[in-house]
Each structure stands twice: as structure tokens, then as C-alpha cells.
């Protein structure tokens, strides 16, 4: 009986090490989204390519698609653009919110890097971004056919992230719907 008690501090120590050690490898910049499972906030933003029209969440309904938060001042956005063009070629519906940007610079950027989006809304003051819980561009939201948010990725969207986080969820959504 006495001998087993000797090991208790040791076991507690190991437990603490595992707990703290795991903390060392967590990325503090990665924050979970609180918007998962919720509908997109209602918004009505002027369309970047034609300011007489408006972009609303209803335009995304009916299909599983992506909503990207992007800006011409964001360097990481350039990195993911080639991959987004590829997704567009595959027929994935892509939408975007142009985050705190100048329309002229955003349009110039699209000329340089290509435009894979069906519709882009201008969020000049970043108000809709706050409603979405955006804290850094680029961010990509996976939206189902009813307009509910299923996943949020912060940072560059590439093949690895797409295969790991998006493809299984899209497959499941398609199977359920």
C-alpha cells in the first residue's frame, strides 16, 4: 500500500508534463470560430465589379460554396489565389468579401491575379467582418446550401488544407443533403 503512494507524485508530474507540453505545440494565433453552425450574418454590400448591385447572403444559397475574406493589401492573399483559380476551374462556387480595401486597388489586384469569384462584396469599414469574427485576412468560410457556416480556415488556403479540412466536410454535406 505504502509503495504505490510513492508513485503518485511521479504520475502527477508526468500528467502535468503532458498537459503543459501539449500547450507548447498549440498555435496561439489559431482561434476557433464561434460562428460554426450558425447562419451568415445578414448583410447587403455593394458589389465590387458593379456598385449598383448588392451582394447578400441569399445569393450563396442553393450550393455548397466558399466565402473568402480578402484584400489587395494582404500578401498572403496572393499566395492562395492560384489555388482558388484552380477550385474555380473545378466548379466550386466562390464568393468573396473585399475587406477594408480601396475598390480601385482591389480591381487592379484582380486584373493581376485573376478573379475566381462569382460575386464580391465591398466591406470598406470591416463591419461585416466583425459579425463574422474575422481577425486576419485571408479567411475562408465553408457555407452550405442553406447559408450555414460549417468551417472557417484562417490563413492561406492550399491543397493540403483543402484536402484535410474542406473535402471531407463537403463530402459529408453532399451525403446528408
Amino acid at each position, binding site marked *: 500500500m505504502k509503495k504505490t503512494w510513492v508513485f503518485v507524485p511521479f504520475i502527477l508530474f508526468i500528467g502535468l508534463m503532458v498537459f503543459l507540453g501539449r500547450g507548447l505545440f498549440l498555435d496561439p494565433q489559431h*482561434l476557433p470560430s*464561434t460562428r460554426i453552425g450558425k447562419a451568415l450574418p445578414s448583410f447587403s454590400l455593394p458589389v465590387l465589379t458593379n456598385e449598383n448591385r448588392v451582394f447578400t447572403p441569399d445569393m450563396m444559397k442553393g450550393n455548397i460554396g466558399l466565402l473568402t475574406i480578402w484584400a489587395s493589401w494582404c500578401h498572403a492573399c496572393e499566395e492562395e489565389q492560384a489555388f482558388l483559380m484552380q477550385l474555380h476551374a473545378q466548379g466550386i462556387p466562390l464568393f468573396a468579401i473585399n475587406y477594408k480595401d480601396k475598390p480601385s486597388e482591389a480591381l487592379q489586384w484582380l486584373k493581376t491575379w485573376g478573379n475566381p469569384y462569382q460575386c464580391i462584396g465591398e466591406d470598406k469599414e470591416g463591419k461585416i467582418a466583425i459579425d463574422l469574427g474575422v*481577425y486576419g485576412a485571408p479567411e475562408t468560410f465553408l457555407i452550405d446550401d442553406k447559408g450555414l457556416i460549417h468551417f472557417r480556415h484562417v490563413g492561406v488556403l492550399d491543397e493540403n488544407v483543402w484536402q484535410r479540412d474542406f473535402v471531407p466536410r463537403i463530402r459529408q454535406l453532399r451525403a446528408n443533403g
Partner: protein
Amino acid sequence: MRYQFIVAFFLFSLASFVQANDLYPLPSKRQEAQFNHLLKELRCLVCQNQDLADSNASLAADLRLAVYERVTAGESDSEIIQYLSARYGDFILFKPPVKRVTWLLWYGPLLFLLLGFWIFWRTCIKVTKNE
């Protein structure tokens, strides 16, 4: 000389208050205090160790404005905190709320204190028994 220095010091420290008021003018002292207090409680999500009052990140400026608009509209602290944590999660609060997942965080120290007392008490008994 010394008095001049003290007067200058106070004027300088006042200068920062005046600046803050110019940027975010509020009708009452109470709302001003609420605004300043909230900015200290809320974390900037870009520079994560800075509060919203300190941070120069553009997101922090947007969030400051969001808090300002809500304070002006007469919302309470809990309403504003609820608004922000619904969007950014509890991480935006420097002080985590008491809920099931944070029980260990809040009550853990008390638990360890009691555990310490218990061990101390048992060892004392042992020592007295051996005597």
C-alpha cells in the same frame, strides 16, 4: 523649479486623456469610464498580448469603434461583452468567464490549497504519532 516640473508633469499626463476624449467623445463621465474600462478588459486578436486600448492594429481600431458605438447607444458592459464574445469567442476577454470548462482554472488553486493542507495535516499526525 521643482513646482514647475510637477506642473509640467501633470499637464503632460493630462494630454493623453484629452487626446483620447477627442477621438471618442462621450457625453458623460460614466460612459467615458465604461469605455476606458472595457477597452482594458478586451484583447486585441492580432497582437494578442495587447488590450484594445493599446493596440495599433487596424482590427483593434475597428473593435474600439464597435465598442464606442455600443457605449454611446447606452448598452451595458455585459451586453457589449456578449456581443464581442459571440463573434470572437471567450479569447477576446482577458478574464475568462466561469463555466464548466474553466472550473479547473478558477477553482483549481483552491483545490490545490486544500490538498496541500490535507497532506500537511496528515504528515503532522504521523510525526506526532511517531513521537
